[in-house]
């Protein structure tokens, strides 16, 4: 069976005054129906560029997107656009401030000419009810809503076209902790009801762990580690993944499964990425070969793949630490 979403060797470039940034430098991913792939990485690693290219907001330089095995035009128009929708980080910036809540949810339906006016009104009402926005709020404007309510409206808008795939770009980062739980529960419920596929981008590792079936770690435009959430969590193999988990408060578990990795410097200039392994300039474990050869994603079993010349050294000796 072909995967619900397949990304093949996607490359996204941004032209800047000082040169071309390869924001996404050849990323391939496969997501099954009903699956969540969590995508983590620092800002500037290309995760949002990748997300926007998948939704069709950026035009990728090369690469293919297949939905259920069918190739799609990256600049999807018309019916194709319905399959992939996006939930944005900042619901305030992504909602038209002059449209009411009801109009905002109706808009995608009218753009795609779905149903007549009465049907659209009914659909919008049902969607808003589903995401927990009471009828009293349907005529309000975005600025009259709280952050959590705005994000619910953003989710209702994304769901309006009954997509198969939803790209969630930091959907709870701008929300308060008590409201984050509400929105995460809502997203997971919707996923179960409609067998949605999520690409879930977040810098919050605990949130990613909570929602993801699989986790992918991105660094300077490439995937450095990907695998089942439990595998990546209990035995992070790439030094960068280990560094992320160490700083996120899991130092003990990292120490138990191999070398500790403390990052001292910051992301190198993306205009001129390092040769060989892109992480080597920040990697305390880098050796000669890392500057020469680009490491390929190597399978360590159970679909846990890592792009590191040295990962084998600790992959074999360490036993997964169960958190």
């Amino acid at each position: 069976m072909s995967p619900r979403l397949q990304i093949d060797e996607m490359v996204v470039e941004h032209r800047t005054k000082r040169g071309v940034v390869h924001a996404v430098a050849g990323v391939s991913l496969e997501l099954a129906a009903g699956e969540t792939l969590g995508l983590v990485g620092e800002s500037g690693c290309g995760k949002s560029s990748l997300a926007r290219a998948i939704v069709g907001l950026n035009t990728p330089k090369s690469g293919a997107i297949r939905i259920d095995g069918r190739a799609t035009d990256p600049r999807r128009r018309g019916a194709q656009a319905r399959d992939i929708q996006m939930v944005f980080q900042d619901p305030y910036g992504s909602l038209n401030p002059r449209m009411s809540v009801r109009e905002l949810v109706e808009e995608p339906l009218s753009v795609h000419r779905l149903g007549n006016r009465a049907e659209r009104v009914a659909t919008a009402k049902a969607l808003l009810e589903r995401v927990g926005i009471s009828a009293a709020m349907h005529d309000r404007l975005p600025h009259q809503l709280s952050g959590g309510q705005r994000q619910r409206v953003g989710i209702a808008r994304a769901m309006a076209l009954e997509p198969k795939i939803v790209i969630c770009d930091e959907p709870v980062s701008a929300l308060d902790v008590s409201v984050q739980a509400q929105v995460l529960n809502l997203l997971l419920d919707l996923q179960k009801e409609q067998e949605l596929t999520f690409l879930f981008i977040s810098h919050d590792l605990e949130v990613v762990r909570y929602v993801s079936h699989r986790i992918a770690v991105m660094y300077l435009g490439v995937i450095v580690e990907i695998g089942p959430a439990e595998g990546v969590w209990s035995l992070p193999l790439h030094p960068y993944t280990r560094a992320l988990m160490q700083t996120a408060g899991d130092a003990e578990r990292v120490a138990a499964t191999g070398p500790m990795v403390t990052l001292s410097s910051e992301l190198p200039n993306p205009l001129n990425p390092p040769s060989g392994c892109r992480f080597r300039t920040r990697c305390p474990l880098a050796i000669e070969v890392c500057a020469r050869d680009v490491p390929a994603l190597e399978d360590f079993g159970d679909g846990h793949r890592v792009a590191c010349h040295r990962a084998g050294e600790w992959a074999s000796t360490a036993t997964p630490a169960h958190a």
Partner: protein
Amino acid sequence: MTPSASAPKGALLDVEGLSILIKDKRGDVRAVDDVSFSVAAGETLAIVGESGAGKSLTALALMRLLPKTLGVEAKRITLAGQDLTSPSELDIRKVRGSVMAMIFQDPLSALNPVLTVERQLVEAIRLHETISRTDARARALELLDMVRIPAASARLGEYPHRLSGGMRQRVMIAMALAGRPKLILADEPTTALDVTISGQILDLLKELQRDLGLGMLFITHDLHVVRSVAHRVAVMYSGRVVESGSVADVFERPRHPYTEGLIQARPHGSFVTDGHRLREIAGTVPVPAARPPGCAFEPRCVRAEADCRQVVPPLVREAGTPRSLACFHPLQQEQYA
């Protein structure tokens, strides 16, 4: 609460009954309502809460950086032995920067974009010390070394926009240290940074605090950050402190339903395949003007009873413990095992 109970002997900063009023024709609204806390030298107190809790206002009120439209009232504020309850502009200028200094969330807007790092640092240094420009430049270099900026002398000539987020925050910290303060007010200093960088900045702050014996008031919404930097924590909700105590104690055995709700609302190390559901706190934080007459958390609280709707529960210190609590129906410690 008796004043002596809230102020450990030798507290660097002691605040009692601080309120911040939004002046309004229909009556003043208390954005921060009767908040008390203290910070000792070498100690970090974290104030944690969601947006609108009044955390940042509290720090700005101490620095007297609030706009004139907001009124500040306090029963007592003392800083390093000095009474700052109702300071004159001159009093506050004497302590601002040299006794207490602030680190802001967004260094790009807190730094002057048209001046080099050197100009800004030298200005800050010479505000507090009468030294020559050459000596001030040497001191600026020393400060940049202190905050671990590599190739410091090359960085002196840079403008803020040329620096990365982490470097900018280090420059902010260097500027805060320029006047050799005893107390640092850090308002979400790592919120705008990436995880890896935020870890570095937190480590730096912890080291500086230890080496210089600084007191630190650390404002954050992130429970994880509280765990990593603070000795004690005060949880704020809608302008009031609802629970305070040592970090380990409050996080392991939360007694206020809001504190417990905050902790439970975060993912707890489960995987999606476990099917664990996060516990939600229904509703949202009330705006100060619409705060209910009793406990501000009552409309969202599962333990609320009739008395919670009528009277504001006072923050009461538990006998024989460093723990304070403002709740009529707290969780019993056994219940949370």
